[in-house]
């Protein structure tokens, strides 16, 4: 099918999935122990009674379930994700305020992990069987097995506390009022550690996939054909092996999106990065379920969007998909 058709089908599926998540959210609120109004008001019932009564009326909590459902879903469709009593802001505004920081962090981590993962994966594959290969794969295994938040803490310990090279938390140096280039530099300084720690785990994932994919593709018949033509090794590696080997890596990148968002929660918490992951943590401690579920919905939307993008990219790279399979 055509590209447009593909995008449309995926968009339709995405809409349905998001709707289902909204439904899921609804049921989760009602699954929480206690009075749903108190749950929605947050603060473990410390919110004032007037507000709780207002909520009860607004969401029809005295009314049958299906009416509540209708009101809740209707609200979401009008982009009303509720109100955070704790933060005294509509949830949607709260999220939109923090979203850019998370996007900056996750996209940087993603790009870095993909790049380093592929580079090291290629290096390992080129030296297969030698000790350098074992060293690289060993390192990958180590990063893969380490808890993300612990790496983050150790990184803070080493680079901020001991060596004092990089800032330990935050998005920017507060109160410094940098502008222009100095501001960019300051932001970058703050970005390095969080992006690196978030990216290391995924770098390991891409590294291993790249390595095994390259090794597999190198054994395939068409590589032998390329050699039989007298092509130089370099060209064979680039044009024949690499292109084919990277296809599964693209698919993998799509699948990892969900994990990346989850990892962001941990990273942002440790580094006090003002993104939606941190927001999720804060709303957790404050029992602010409205915000919690709002962040959940938005993060799911991000993952779905990312998946659509990787799907499209894959279609563009692999001519077999665009034509709808074998002729």
């Amino acid at each position, binding site marked *: 099918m055509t590209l447009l058709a593909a995008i449309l089908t995926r968009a339709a599926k995405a809409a349905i999935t998001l709707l289902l998540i909204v439904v899921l959210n609804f049921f*989760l609120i009602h699954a929480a122990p206690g009075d749903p109004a108190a749950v929605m008001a947050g603060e473990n019932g410390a919110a004032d009674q007037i507000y709780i009564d207002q909520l009860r009326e607004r969401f029809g909590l005295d009314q049958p379930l299906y009416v509540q459902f209708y009101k809740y879903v209707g609200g979401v469709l009008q982009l009303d994700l509720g109100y955070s009593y704790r933060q005294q802001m509509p949830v949607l505004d709260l999220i939109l305020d923090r979203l850019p920081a998370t996007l900056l962090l996750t996209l940087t981590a993603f790009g870095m992990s993909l790049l380093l993962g592929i580079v090291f994966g290629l290096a390992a594959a080129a030296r297969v069987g030698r000790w350098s290969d074992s060293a690289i794969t060993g390192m990958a295994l180590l990063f893969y*097995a380490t*808890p993300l938040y612990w790496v983050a803490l*150790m990184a803070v310990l080493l680079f901020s*506390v001991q060596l004092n090279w990089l800032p330990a938390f935050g998005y920017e140096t507060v109160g410094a009022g940098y502008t222009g280039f100095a501001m960019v530099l300051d932001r970058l300084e703050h970005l390095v550690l969080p992006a690196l720690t978030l990216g290391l785990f995924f770098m390991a994932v891409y590294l291993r996939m790249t390595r095994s994919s390259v*090794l597999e593709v190198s054994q395939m018949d068409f590589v032998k054909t390329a050699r039989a033509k007298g092509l130089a090794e370099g060209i064979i590696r680039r044009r024949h092996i690499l292109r084919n080997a990277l296809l599964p890596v693209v698919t993998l990148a799509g699948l990892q999106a969900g994990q990346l*968002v989850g990892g962001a929660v941990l990273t942002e918490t440790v580094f006090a990065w003002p993104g939606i992951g941190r927001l999720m943590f804060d709303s957790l401690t404050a029992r602010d379920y409205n915000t919690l579920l709002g962040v*959940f919905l938005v993060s799911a939307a991000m993952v779905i969007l990312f998946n659509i993008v990787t799907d499209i990219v894959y279609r563009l790279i692999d001519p077999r998909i665009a034509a709808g399979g074998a002729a």
Partner: protein
Amino acid sequence: MMDFMKRFARNRGALLGLLILIVVVLLAVFAPLLFPQSPWKMVQRPFLPPFAADGLPLGTDTLGRNVAAGLVHGARVSLIVGLVSTAVALLIGVPLGALAGFYGGWVDEGAMRFTEFFQTIPSFALAIVLVAILEPHLTSITLAIAIVSWPPVARLVRAEVMSLRGREFVDAARLAGLSNLRILFGHILPNAMSPIIVMASLMVATAILLESSLSFLGLGDPNIMSWGYMIGAARTVIRTAWWLSFIPGVAILLTVLALNLIGEGLNDALNPRLARKGR
């Protein structure tokens, strides 16, 4: 069987992993013997460094609790949560994937949409939401981890079953007059066991990481001392008592690493044709 063990033993990484895991399991099993007192008990003054006092080989934490005791009891939690949640995830994923792969058609469609839905939701976020809503408790945590872990198993089993169901020995079983279910469970699934076992070992590792992450964020069972909790609790004092964050992390790292190494060893041992050197 002997063949399999020999092949496994040839992989030094896997042997190392096995060794580490055995140590962890032994520590967990003998925890009540080694440290009979509850790890929550305050035994000495806080922030004692390791080796500073008798019976406190790893010192004390922010509230004067025995770090070594916490570590050993934490091993129990990690292993139990890891094993049980994986078992539950397998219980959900294997039959679902098997039926989807075998019957195809709308059974497959339905199962796949269902699985896809769960796979698009960011798993850690879902786990957080589930545990938060259901109140943190060992059962809710285990359940939440199982719920986010089953989709990859279902996909794997489905793929394996689909490839096996086209094999001629399955046709032969049909010609022998065997019923569909007998073919699926008697002929197909036993041949799909190898990748499932490998995946299971990796799932235990992931479950342990998930549990510790949840505990770190404060979503652990408040009555259970777990490694993630220890790291989370020590976060504020990282400048002064860095070892309190460091040590439990090493424990997690070693356990997860061990499981990964074992998983790879199992993979090589069960699929001898796919040798690692890329031959």
